[in-house]
């Protein structure tokens, strides 16, 4: 800690002022073996330097994650929960990736940064994640369990430990460059914190144009830095790190829109890429969220989106589909319209590929309710008109006429392109034909090299939920051979004993944060400090430039000791992101962590009142007073600790259930696997090959025999879940088995109950009236088991969207297009002369499946597009099937086909059993009967109820590979709980006073988490604190005042109200 002294002193002495010393900056700590991340300073990791272990020896209990986007962040967080040390490497100065640049995310329209930032903070404050920023992987040696990775760490020129992220250096930087965070749409100083929420939140110098680094001139930033953090002598260094597994998640790069030169990107100002438009929409972007033109700043009315720029493009781009553009264009259209009602968005598209959970509904809503116009065509060109600088888009409309239409602005929906070749070479992993990391047929996170796993868009184009699923799955697989050394390299946080403050007079310490200029630029912070000092119970008050910085935490601990404080109030930003940090600080100083209160004088004050600084100062005083008054009344709270039962329960013995069970059992946890049917396999039994050609039945056989032979898997076939009690770490389930009922205790639940095939009622598309009308599943069986019966087939008609995208089942079943292509190719292989006509609505061969669509077209498979309102009509007249369909690809002309086989591509529906199981587990379902995860974007395998996880078709229709990968993710999430001895639950929970409770059950009805039960014997409500989320709904509803939310008791809240309004 000694080496931190100078920084701290400097910061204290010069808070808000210029430093006294104006000498040339000299590096206090020369380059060399210096810690990269703040947390590293705390305790050197002795074990890291252990000599390389040979094969057969204990593996290394650490994992390297390369790439700090959402995938890498999720994998890192999962791994530390499982008990591993993580080295998180990113070539940028901070983590966050592309998700940090997005405005909103589909289909929930969540603010991207708001849901990402807490995860970034979690990574930044986790002691077992070591960050290597500005770092590239340059070498890899060793083998699974004992890898040695060589890293090249580029100089940051700013000492991470000293920098408080105050931003003073940026104000004095003389050179401005294009800001990559804003997609180059604005300019930013060379020395800067990459973006306000960056982790680490420290500045760095972009050396490309730095006057000092290039020519020894300037040096202003070092002179002005109050913390003395700027270090021009910083040098590049090489480090070697030992790890057991490696996860790569370095993402993608957007397609270079200049390659599609006919759209004039880079020539016309009002033609922008979708990533640029995302920044234009963002409130913290270059136009503060105003949808305006780049040429003149005028508001945009007519806005065009051109899809497939660089995707599905065999001339200038890539042949695959980028999977995400249809949805993001739809989202951007909807959000642009929300920002300015007069915006009229038009989307030019080829096929609308809204195949994910909630996507089709989002698209239909955008089209039918939000006024987004969709035009099916690939736009031919965009030209700039003079003098308006409007953009003229040329296209062929569905009627076949060529049209030119003027727009104020055009957004090019650029695809995802691989950026994997360099890293793949270093790591020795294979690439696929398109240049992405090649992955396993069934578990898409396995690379070609054992021990190296891949997640996110590096493996193939995909959206955030799929990246997050892969992230957890890769963490699970990375753990698979390291279980024996779990927790070997992780630091356990030791706290000093908690001080007993009962009976003490409150002594509140008030810390007022400037947040650089965020608060300090508006609110008169010294005046607020002076005011706080006058308030009762305040023993100490002072300000900080950034109360959240690492050195400020040390300072808070010091003032607690020095002034014998027993309560702390910080007036700064939002508790959502920063309360955990301050609670941690308070706890490490020996106080109960609930003796901390926060006042939000940024979001609630300086940001919204920046034009009226005097009033803002007064409001900040009031907010502080409220916080201080409440702080004085705070009581220490206890957190619940419950022991984890190290068993797992997997419900459903299909492919997903088996993969999850095997992964947990392999990790050493006893796993109960319950399957309703008398045999394992679920829907996987009906599938013979994937569209990519992998042998499904062979894999299924392998899974089955492994499950049946595994000593740690307790398999129950023909069995049913009777009921489930308990909570995370401690579930109790009764199972009805053929041998009688069983009672099982387990710590986690994985729901993998699968889905079902839609069964068309007799008469739908001629089903039931002729044996030549079959389903894809039946066709696939024939192709596999009796191909001879199909040899004479000369004409096959396939009909898509049977039981999907209609009023009864509004969602897209996602897999049917791929299945149809797969079987069409199989028929063509069997009998090249056979005609195959596929009647479809939108061909949704997302990602690399597009390759097979292209191949089918090359082989002469004919595609006929129909509209939902005008579906094909199948009749069996004169003994033979006849199909009439209005082909929208030829302006709705009716085509009459005389097939000898009609194949219905039936959709995936939810398992009817889900409606019984949901209530037993107290977890919700969607209106379509699929299970509803905790958060569609960032928690795709978790339920809102802790300790229960989700995988496979029970979640939503998906391919085998996607199901099995999600199963690996669910198992990994489950493992992160099973790996712990105890689970700790929040101190802020509701409590019912049994002496007051009248037993009215109002609270029980209200609780969304099923956390309150009725004790019939005593006639009172009882809160299960392990399930309680502390929302407070019950406490507010309690008519007798028996139910209290700890930390928000009436006396505490009334004290705040009085502080704000005086005695009423």
């Amino acid at each position, binding site marked *: 800690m000694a080496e931190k002294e100078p920084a701290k002193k400097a910061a204290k002495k010069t808070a808000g002022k210029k430093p006294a010393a104006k000498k040339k900056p000299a590096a206090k700590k020369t380059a060399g073996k210096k810690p990269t991340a703040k947390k590293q300073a705390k305790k050197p990791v002795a074990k890291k330097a252990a000599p390389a272990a040979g094969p057969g020896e204990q593996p290394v209990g650490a994992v390297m994650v390369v790439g700090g986007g959402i995938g890498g962040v999720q994998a890192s967080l999962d791994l530390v929960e499982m008990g591993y040390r993580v080295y998180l490497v990113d070539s940028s100065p901070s983590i966050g990736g592309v998700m940090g640049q997005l405005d909103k995310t589909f289909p929930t329209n969540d603010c991207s940064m708001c849901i990402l930032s807490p995860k970034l903070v979690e990574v930044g404050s986790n002691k077992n994640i070591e960050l290597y920023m500005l770092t590239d992987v340059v070498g890899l040696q060793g083998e699974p369990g004992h890898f040695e990775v060589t890293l090249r760490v580029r100089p940051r020129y700013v000492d991470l430990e000293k920098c408080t992220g105050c931003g003073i250096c940026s104000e004095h930087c003389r050179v401005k460059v294009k800001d990559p965070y804003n997609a180059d749409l604005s300019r930013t100083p060379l020395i800067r914190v990459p973006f306000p929420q960056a982790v680490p939140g420290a500045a760095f110098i972009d050396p490309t144009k730095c006057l000092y680094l290039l020519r020894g001139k300037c040096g202003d930033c070092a002179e002005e830095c109050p913390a003395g953090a700027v270090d021009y002598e910083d040098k590049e260094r090489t480090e070697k790190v030992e790890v057991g597994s490696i996860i790569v998640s370095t993402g993608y790069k957007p397609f270079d829109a200049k390659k599609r030169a006919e759209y*004039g990107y880079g*020539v*016309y100002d009002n033609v922008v890429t979708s990533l640029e438009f995302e920044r234009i929409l963002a409130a913290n972007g270059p136009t503060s969220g105003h949808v305006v033109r780049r040429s003149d700043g005028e508001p945009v009315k007519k806005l065009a989106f051109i899809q497939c720029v660089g995707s599905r493009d065999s001339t200038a781009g890539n042949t695959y589909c980028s999977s995400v553009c249809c949805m993001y264009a739809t989202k951007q259209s909807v959000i642009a319209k929300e920002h300015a009602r007069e915006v009229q968005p038009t989307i030019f598209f080829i096929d609308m590929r809204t195949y994910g959970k909630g996507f089709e509904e989002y698209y239909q809503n955008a089209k039918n309710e939000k006024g987004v116009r969709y035009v099916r065509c690939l736009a031919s060109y965009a*030209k*700039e008109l*003079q*003098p308006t600088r409007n953009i003229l888009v040329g296209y062929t409309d569905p009627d076949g006429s060529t049209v030119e239409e003027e727009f104020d602005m055009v957004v090019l929906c650029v695809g995802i392109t691989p950026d994997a070749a360099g890293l793949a070479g270093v790591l020795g992993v294979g690439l696929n034909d398109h240049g992405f990391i090649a992955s396993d047929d069934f578990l898409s996170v396995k690379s070609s090299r054992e021990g190296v796993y891949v997640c996110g868009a590096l493996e193939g184009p995909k959206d955030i939920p799929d990246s997050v699923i892969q992230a957890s799955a890769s963490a699970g697989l990375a753990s698979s051979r390291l279980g024996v050394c779990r927790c070997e390299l992780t630091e356990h946080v030791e706290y000093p004993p908690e001080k007993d403050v009962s009976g003490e007079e409150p002594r509140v310490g008030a810390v007022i944060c400037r947040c650089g200029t965020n608060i300090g630029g508006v609110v008169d912070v010294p005046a607020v400090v002076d005011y706080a000092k006058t308030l009762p119970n305040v023993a100490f008050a002072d300000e900080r430039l950034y109360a959240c910085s690492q050195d400020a935490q040390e300072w808070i601990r010091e003032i607690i000791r020095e002034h014998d404080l027993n309560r702390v109030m910080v007036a700064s930003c939002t508790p959502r992101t920063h309360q955990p940090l301050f609670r941690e600080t308070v706890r490490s100083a020996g106080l109960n962590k609930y003796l901390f209160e926060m006042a939000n004088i940024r979001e609630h004050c300086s940001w919204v009142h920046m034009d009226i600084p005097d009033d803002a100062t007064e409001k900040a005083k009031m907010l502080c007073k409220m916080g201080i008054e409440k702080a004085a009344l705070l009581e220490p709270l206890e957190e619940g600790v419950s022991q984890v039962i190290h068993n797992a329960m997997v419900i459903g013995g299909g492919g997903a259930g088996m993969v999850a069970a095997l992964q947990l059992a392999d990790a050493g946890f006893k796993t109960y696997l319950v399957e309703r049917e008398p045999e394992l396999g679920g829907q996987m039994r009906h599938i013979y090959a994937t569209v990519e050609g992998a042998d499904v039945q062979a894999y299924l056989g392998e899974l089955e025999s492994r499950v049946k032979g595994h000593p740690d898997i307790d398999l129950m076939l023909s069995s049913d879940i009777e009921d489930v009690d308990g909570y995370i770490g401690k579930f109790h389930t009764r199972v009805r088995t053929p041998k009688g009922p069983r009672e099982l205790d387990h710590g986690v639940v994985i729901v993998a109950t699968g889905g079902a095939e839609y069964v068309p009622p007799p008469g739908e598309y001629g089903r039931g009236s002729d044996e030549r009308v079959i389903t894809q599943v039946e066709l696939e069986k024939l192709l596999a088991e009796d191909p001879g019966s199909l040899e004479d087939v000369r004409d096959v008609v396939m009909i898509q969207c049977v039981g999907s995208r209609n009023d009864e089942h509004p969602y897209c079943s996602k897999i049917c297009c791929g299945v149809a292509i797969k079987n069409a190719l199989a028929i063509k292989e069997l009998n090249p002369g056979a005609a195959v006509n596929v009647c479809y609505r939108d061909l949704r061969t997302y990602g690399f499946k597009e390759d097979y669509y292209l191949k089918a077209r090359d082989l002469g498979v004919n595609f006929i597009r129909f509209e939902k309102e005008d579906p094909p009509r199948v009749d069996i007249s004169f003994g033979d099937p006849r199909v009439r369909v209005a082909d929208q690809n030829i302006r709705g002309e009716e085509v009459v086909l005389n097939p000898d086989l009609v194949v219905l591509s039936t959709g995936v529906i939810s398992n009817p059993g889900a409606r019984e199981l949901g209530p037993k587990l107290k977890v919700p379902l969607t209106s379509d009967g699929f299970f509803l995860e905790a958060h569609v974007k960032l928690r795709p395998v978790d339920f809102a109820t802790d300790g229960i996880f989700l995988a496979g078709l029970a979640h939503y229709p998906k391919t085998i590979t996607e199901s099995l990968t999600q199963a690996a993710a669910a198992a990994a999430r489950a493992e992160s709980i099973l790996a712990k001895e105890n689970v700790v639950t929040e101190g802020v929970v509701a409590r019912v006073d049994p002496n007051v409770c009248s037993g009215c059950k109002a609270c029980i009805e209200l609780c969304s988490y099923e956390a309150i039960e009725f004790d019939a014997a005593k006639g009172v409500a009882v809160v299960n604190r392990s399930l309680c989320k502390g929302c407070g709904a019950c406490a507010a509803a309690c008519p007798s005042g028996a139910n209290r939310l700890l930390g928000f008791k009436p006396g505490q809240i009334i004290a705040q109200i009085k502080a704000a309004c005086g005695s009423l």
Partner: protein
Amino acid sequence: MSELRFTYYPGCSQSGSAEEYGDSSEAVCQALGIELTELPDWSCCGASSAHMTNDVLSVALPGRDLAAAKRLGQDVLVVCAACYSRMKISQERILADEELAREVEAAIGADPRFAGKVRHLLDVMVNDIGLATLKEEVLLPLEGLKAVPYYGCLLVRPPEVCFCDSVENPTDLDRFMEALGVEVMPWSFKTDCCGGSLSLSRTDVVEKLVNKLFTRAEEAGANCIVAACPMCVANLEMRQRPGKLSFKINHPMPVLYFTELLALAMTLPGARKWLESHIIDPMPLMVQAKLMSV
């Protein structure tokens, strides 16, 4: 001055409808020290008619000229965009496809495998002479001319054989004109089609396309269009409106060859004569811009 020597292929138009283009091209070459030797006994390249009629013929016609060029040995210089396109494409195909080369050889009775370069004059100006040299040669900066560059199709397409820096947004002609002091107006219709040889068979189509070009050029604030293709210039000058008398001028915007502008900027004799020969009279503009007296 440069040591540039070429076998010169004039092409038919340059001694007919586009005489001013041919003459001005030869004059500027001479002034810049580019030595031209006219290809002896040259014949028509086949233009757009041949390749719509017979594929082998469309290669054999330029093949005959390539065979003659092979005997001379020097690189070939072409000024007409259509001739340039036909010569380049034929050369590429002959050199890449031996069977075709033999067929052509049999048809013309000479070896058409010319391995030298086929160059367009604009390419030579921009990339060999260079813009810096051109700037030095300018005695009369062409201030007052606000031009839109018009490349048309064949200077830029197909991109595999053409010299321009971009197929969608070429800037060679733009930069050339800027070197002469011309103000180049931004517009997006540089490479739109003029209708080409539909001029005679589907006049209505050409009129529509030509009208659009003039309208867009006016919107861009231009007072002239500058081109490097005799077919484009002919269509622009003659096919402005439907009607029996195609010569009726509705858009009084002159259409000029880039070589004429260079000659004017270098104050070469003859510039006035060539400009006066245009259907759309550029003289009022030249007078207004104080580049010429009445």
